[in-house]
């Protein structure tokens, strides 16, 4: 059997989503962002929402998300993505409006905008990448950094006395009346990726059905920031991150 005979539509088991652009990614090898980008591209395509999507990216590692997924994007100021999304969705009600934010953007500088957009029940989806560190700026402490975890601004480990406690935004979001679907997932195994995709798809559908606001946290690894190999970083994430950030659906109305 020749190569040409094998490459036939009936033999196709996997293809790169057409919405993923043919450009090199700036993400570090082993990073979770690429996988989540792919899931979003797949879902937009499957839902047929290419011409009805308003995507909003943050400041942080995903600041260049607009390079990779081939839809219309607004690049927000640090932390303000949910405010942009609020206005877009209120004035374009038939659009799929989502933000893509990291832990510094969402849980720190943008905590106010995030909580209020969620609590108003804006018909949007917030994708929250939580790797417990500021990746883009070189590994500083994040609001979600675990106790004892070392970063460049808590080099001796995070302590409650000096730095306060890790902030669990997703648990908090589940208590808000405006949220319809709140879920915490990961993308470190094939099974986890499938579950994460299901959650993001459910959130996107919810935001189109007008059920309320939707938050999907992806507990992620940052092997560069954590100074570990991709494999070790995933192991560390399973052992430490999942203990504090429990996976699963927290709320689904």
């Amino acid at each position, binding site marked *: 059997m020749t190569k040409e005979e094998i490459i036939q539509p009936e033999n196709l088991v996997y293809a790169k989503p057409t919405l993923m652009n043919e450009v090199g990614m700036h993400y570090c090898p082993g990073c979770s962002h690429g996988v989540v980008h792919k899931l979003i591209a797949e879902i937009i395509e499957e839902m047929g929402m290419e011409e009805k999507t*308003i995507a909003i990216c943050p400041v942080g590692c995903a600041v260049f998300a607009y390079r990779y997924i081939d839809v219309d*994007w*607004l690049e*927000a*100021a640090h932390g*303000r993505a949910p*405010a942009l999304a609020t206005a877009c969705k209120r*004035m374009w009600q038939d659009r799929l409006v989502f933000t893509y934010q990291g832990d510094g953007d969402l849980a720190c500088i943008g905590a106010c*905008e995030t909580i209020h957009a969620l609590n108003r029940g804006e018909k949007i989806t917030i994708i929250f990448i939580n790797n417990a560190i500021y990746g883009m700026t070189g590994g500083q402490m994040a609001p979600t950094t675990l106790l004892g975890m070392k970063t460049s601004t808590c080099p001796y480990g995070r302590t409650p006395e000096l730095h306060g406690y890790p902030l669990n935004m997703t648990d908090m979001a589940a208590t808000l009346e405006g949220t319809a679907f709140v879920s915490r997932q990961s993308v470190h195994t094939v099974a986890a990726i499938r579950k994460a995709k299901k959650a993001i798809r459910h959130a996107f559908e919810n935001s189109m059905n007008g059920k309320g606001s939707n938050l999907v946290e992806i507990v992620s690894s940052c092997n560069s920031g954590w100074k570990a190999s991709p494999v070790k970083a995933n192991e560390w994430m399973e052992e430490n991150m999942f203990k504090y950030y429990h996976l699963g659906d927290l709320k689904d109305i």
Partner: protein
Amino acid sequence: MIEENVELMKGNEAIAHAAIRCGCDGYFGYPITPQSEVLETLSELKPWETSGMVVLQAESEVAAINMLYGGGGSGKRVMTSSSSPGVALMQEGISYMAAAEIPALIVNVQRGGPGLGTIQPSQSDYRQATVGGGNGDYNVIVLAPNSVQEMADFVDLAFELAFKYRNPTMILSDGVIGQMMEKVVLPPIKPRRTEEEIAAECPWAVNGHGLKHRKPNILTSLEMDPHVMEQRNLDMQKKYATIRETEVRYEEYLCDDADYLLVAFGCVARMGKEAVDTLRREGIKAGLFRPITLWPFPEEQLHHLAGRLKGILVPEMNAGQMIYDVRLAVEGQTPIKHFGRIGGVVPTPDEIILSLKQQFIP
């Protein structure tokens, strides 16, 4: 004579009525004195049931301005209003919008500062508005109304300018104009634009429309390559130069034969006009030059007037802000003096007259 369609209302209320009438798609704001009537009036008028305009009380001025970034970026006519401390909070967002070339209207009904300051009127945000309160080289188009009528008229004008140049536009008002009641004829009703009309006017907008037949629209202020960033800045400066050439607006009152000129904007220009009338009755040839666009400042027009003057007085409700633009325009052709009341105190025409006499007529 019975004047038709004349209504009596506050400047802040006029802003709200005008917004609905000129096809505004969304208002996003946070309460602050002395401009809360804008949001209150809109909430009472419920335009979402008539024109379909969205009205939302944001969680902060920071959120409000970023709602404008989103709304304007998607091609909609969006606006906010606030007062000085709130507008200070918005400066980050305004800088981002100027950089991403996103149109929107910001209304600043100024109060005295600095800090929490006072809820009384002021013009002490002149420099913040005209020089740029946020980071980077950028300009916002600034319109300065001096009446309730202009509050109403400038809403549509501001939107037209904002979309013509893809630039944030500001109505720089003050607590006097915002709070006082005056006769006003509201602007004609203009329907909100349809999706097709938005697509035609804003092919750059982020809303997905027609994506399969075009490249994605990306609005960002970020560019990592300094040479590309320099070019983007140069393109912006080119746009600002065009605005300077085409959009200067001003009003002259008895300037042609004047020996002394008052240069004043907003509510102080009204007192200036009264001062000019009184001075003329006393035999002193005074005139009033009122910049309507504070940026672009009418520098050429003022420059041409200045040559044969005996002096210029710049009365302002601040410690001396517009006077710098006046000096730059006049280029030393005639002496320029300032008269300021600050901290929320409104000057009287008599004080302006006295100041002119003391500083120029020995």
